[in-house]
C-alpha cells in the first residue's frame, strides 16, 4: 500500500474524483498554474484546464458565492480558502446562504459543495495564518464540518464530502500536511461523516481530540502509559455532527474525560462536547470534565516563545492527563 502524506492524500483524492466526476470543478486563489500555495492542486490546471480549475480573484466572499451558484446549476464545486483565517469575509455566504439553501427552499434546491481550508498553528504563522475556525462553523445547522488527522481519513472523508448532498467545510491542519504519513489504500473507500475513531484503547480516561492535537495526544498517551496511566483516545474526525455514541460509550468505560483542542478555550468545540457528556454521560462520570485548549487570546502569536506558550503539546497534555488521573 502506498504511504502518503496528508497533503498527498488530498491531492490524489481530488485528482481521482475529478477524473471520475466531470461535475467537480475547483476554484480558489493560486490554485491554477501555481498549483495552490500548499500544492494541493499541482498539475490540475494542466490536466483539466481553466474551465475546471479556476483561479479566483482575491475575494473569498465570492469564491463561496460562485460555488453556491455553480452548485445550484448542477456542478459540485470544491472551493479552496487559502488559509482558514481568510474565510471570514465569506461567513455570510457560508452560514446564511450555503447552509440554508435546502431548508429555505423546502428541499427544492440543494447546495453540494466542499470548502477546503488549511487551518491551525504551530507553523510560525502568527495571528492570521494559524487560526482554528471550527467552532464558528460547527454551530451552523446545515453545514458539515470535517477535520481529518491521517492520510487514510483525509482520503476517506474527502470522498465522503464529495458525495454529501450538502455543503461541507473540510479543515486541514497545515502543520500535519507533510508531517504525518500513513498508508492510503488505492481502492475506493469512504470514511463516513459523523463517525469518530477510537485510535487508542484505554481504561483510565477518555481523551477526545482532532487534527494536530490528536497526534500530540497520542504522544502524550505514550508518555503516561509508561507511568501506568491508560488513556483511550478518540479522533473526532467529524466536528459537525459529533459522534455522540462513540464518545458516550467510551466515557461509560473510562469515567473520566479530557478534551483537547488548539482553538481558544471559551466557546471552542470542547464546550459542546463537554456539555453533551455532562448531560448524557453524567451518571458515568467520576471526575470533572477537563478541557485543555489554547488560551483566550486572538490566535497564535508569531514569536517562538509565545507560539510555544499558546500551543498545547504532548508534554503539556501529559501533565493534564496525570492531573486528571490523580483525581
Amino acid at each position, binding site marked *: 500500500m502506498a504511504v502518503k502524506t496528508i497533503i498527498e492524500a488530498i491531492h490524489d483524492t481530488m485528482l481521482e474524483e475529478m477524473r471520475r466526476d466531470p461535475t467537480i470543478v475547483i476554484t480558489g486563489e493560486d490554485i491554477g498554474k501555481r498549483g495552490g500555495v500548499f500544492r494541493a492542486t499541482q498539475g490540475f490546471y494542466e490536466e483539466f484546464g481553466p474551465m475546471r480549475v479556476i483561479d479566483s480573484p482575491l475575494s473569498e466572499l465570492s469564491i463561496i*458565492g460562485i460555488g453556491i451558484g455553480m452548485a445550484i446549476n448542477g456542478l459540485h464545486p470544491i472551493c479552496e480558502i487559502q488559509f482558514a483565517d481568510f474565510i471570514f469575509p465569506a461567513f455570510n455566504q457560508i452560514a446564511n446562504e450555503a447552509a440554508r439553501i435546502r431548508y429555505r427552499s423546502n428541499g427544492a434546491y440543494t447546495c453540494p459543495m466542499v470548502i477546503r481550508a488549511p487551518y491551525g498553528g504551530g507553523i510560525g504563522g502568527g495571528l492570521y495564518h494559524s487560526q482554528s475556525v471550527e467552532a464558528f462553523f460547527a454551530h451552523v445547522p446545515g453545514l458539515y464540518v470535517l477535520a481529518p488527522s491521517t492520510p487514510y481519513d483525509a482520503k476517506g472523508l474527502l470522498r465522503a464530502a464529495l458525495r454529501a448532498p450538502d455543503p461541507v467545510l473540510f479543515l486541514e491542519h497545515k502543520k500535519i500536511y507533510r508531517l504525518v504519513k500513513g498508508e492510503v489504500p488505492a481502492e475506493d473507500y469512504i470514511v463516513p461523516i459523523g463517525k469518530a475513531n477510537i485510535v487508542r484503547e484505554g481504561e483510565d480516561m477518555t481523551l477526545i481530540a482532532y487534527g494536530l492535537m490528536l497526534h500530540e495526544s497520542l504522544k502524550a498517551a505514550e508518555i503516561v502509559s509508561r507511568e501506568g496511566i491508560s488513556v483511550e483516545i478518540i479522533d473526532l474526525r467529524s466536528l459537525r455532527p459529533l459522534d455522540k455514541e462513540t464518545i458516550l460509550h467510551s466515557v461509560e468505560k473510562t469515567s473520566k474525560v479530557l478534551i483537547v483542542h488548539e482553538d481558544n478555550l471559551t466557546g471552542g468545540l470542547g464546550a459542546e462536547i463537554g456539555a453533551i457528556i455532562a448531560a448524557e454521560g453524567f451518571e458515568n462520570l467520576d471526575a470533572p470534565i477537563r478541557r485543555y485548549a489554547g488560551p483566550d487570546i486572538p490566535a497564535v502569536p508569531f514569536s517562538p516563545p509565545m507560539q510555544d506558550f499558546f500551543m498545547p503539546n504532548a508534554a503539556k497534555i501529559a501533565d493534564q492527563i496525570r492531573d486528571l488521573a490523580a483525581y
Partner: protein
Amino acid sequence: MGSKESVLPPAAELTDDKLLEMYYAMVRGRRLDERMWVLHRQGKVAFHISGIGHEATQVGAAFTIRQGHDWVYPYYRDIAMVLALGMTPRMLMLGLFGKKEAVSSGGRQMPEHFSYRPSKLVTISSPVGTQIAQAPGTAFASKIKGSDEVTVVCFGEGTTSQGDFHEGLNWASIHKLPVIFLCQNNQYAISEPINVEMAVGHVSDRAKGYNMAGVSVDGNDVLATYDAMREAMARARHGEGPTLVEAITYRPVPHSSDDDDRTYRSREEVEAWKKKDPILNFEKLLYKRGVLDDAKKAEIEAKVMAEVNDATDYAINAPYPAAEEALYPVYGPLPG
C-alpha cells in the same frame, strides 16, 4: 436612455397579443400586491413587502427571459416578475400566509422570498446582495456545460453598496459570463435616498469599474425595459459577456408594511411619481395603438380579480404546516 441605437427596437416587433400579455402581467402583479396590502391592513397577515411601481421593469425583463431555460435570481419586490415567469397568485398568497403548500419555502421563509424550481427561480434570502455573488456562478456553470442559458439577477440600487455586488460583477466581467445584473433603482433604500448610497449619478456608471456594458433605462416604461433587456440578453446569449441594466423607477408605497415613508420623503414627491405610474403609462399607449379598449380592459381586470380572489380564498383556507415540519429539511440523506 443608454440603450444602443438600432433600426427597429425589439419591442416594435411585439404582436398585439404579446402586448396584451404584458399588460395583463403588470395588472396581475399590481392587483395581487394591492390585495396583500389590504390583507395586512385588515390584520390578516403580519407582513408585506411590495413591488408596486416596479411592474414595468419586472414584466419588461420577464418577457425577455426564456422561462424554464434561463436562470433567475429574483428579489423580494419581484411579484410581477415571478408571476410572469410561471408562479401563480395562489403560490404567492400561500407564501404571504405562511401556509404549508407555499412552494417557495413551505412557510419557512417570510413572504416574497421566492423560489420556484420549474421556472428556475432560485431561492433567495433576506440579506441583500448575496445573490449577486451567486448568480455569476450559475452563469459560469452554464458556460462550462456549454449551455446557452442566461442568468438574470435582480436587486435594488442600495444593494449595490454591498461587497457582494462588487465581487459578483468582477467575476462576471473577468470571465465574460452570460449574466445580466438588473438593478431596479427605485431611488431609496428604505429611507436613504440615492445620494447617501453612492456618489455616481447612475447605477449603470458602476459598470465602468468592471469594463462591463452598463445601460440605464426608464423602468416605468415596459417596452424600453424590454428593449434594454433584449439587448443584454443577446449579448449574454452570444458569449459577449454581462450587462448591468439599471431600470429607473420608483416605489410609491412604503418600503414594507413595517415602514412609514412619511418620515423621509415628501408627499409631493410621491404624488409626482404616481403620475408616472407604469401601468397607467402603458395603458395609455395601448389605447392609443388601439390594442386596448374599455371592454378589453374590464375583461382583463375581471380575470385578474378572479385570480386574486381565488388565491386569497385558497390561501386563507389552506392548512398551516405541522409544527414539527420545522425540523426538516436541514440535510439530505448521506449515501451509503
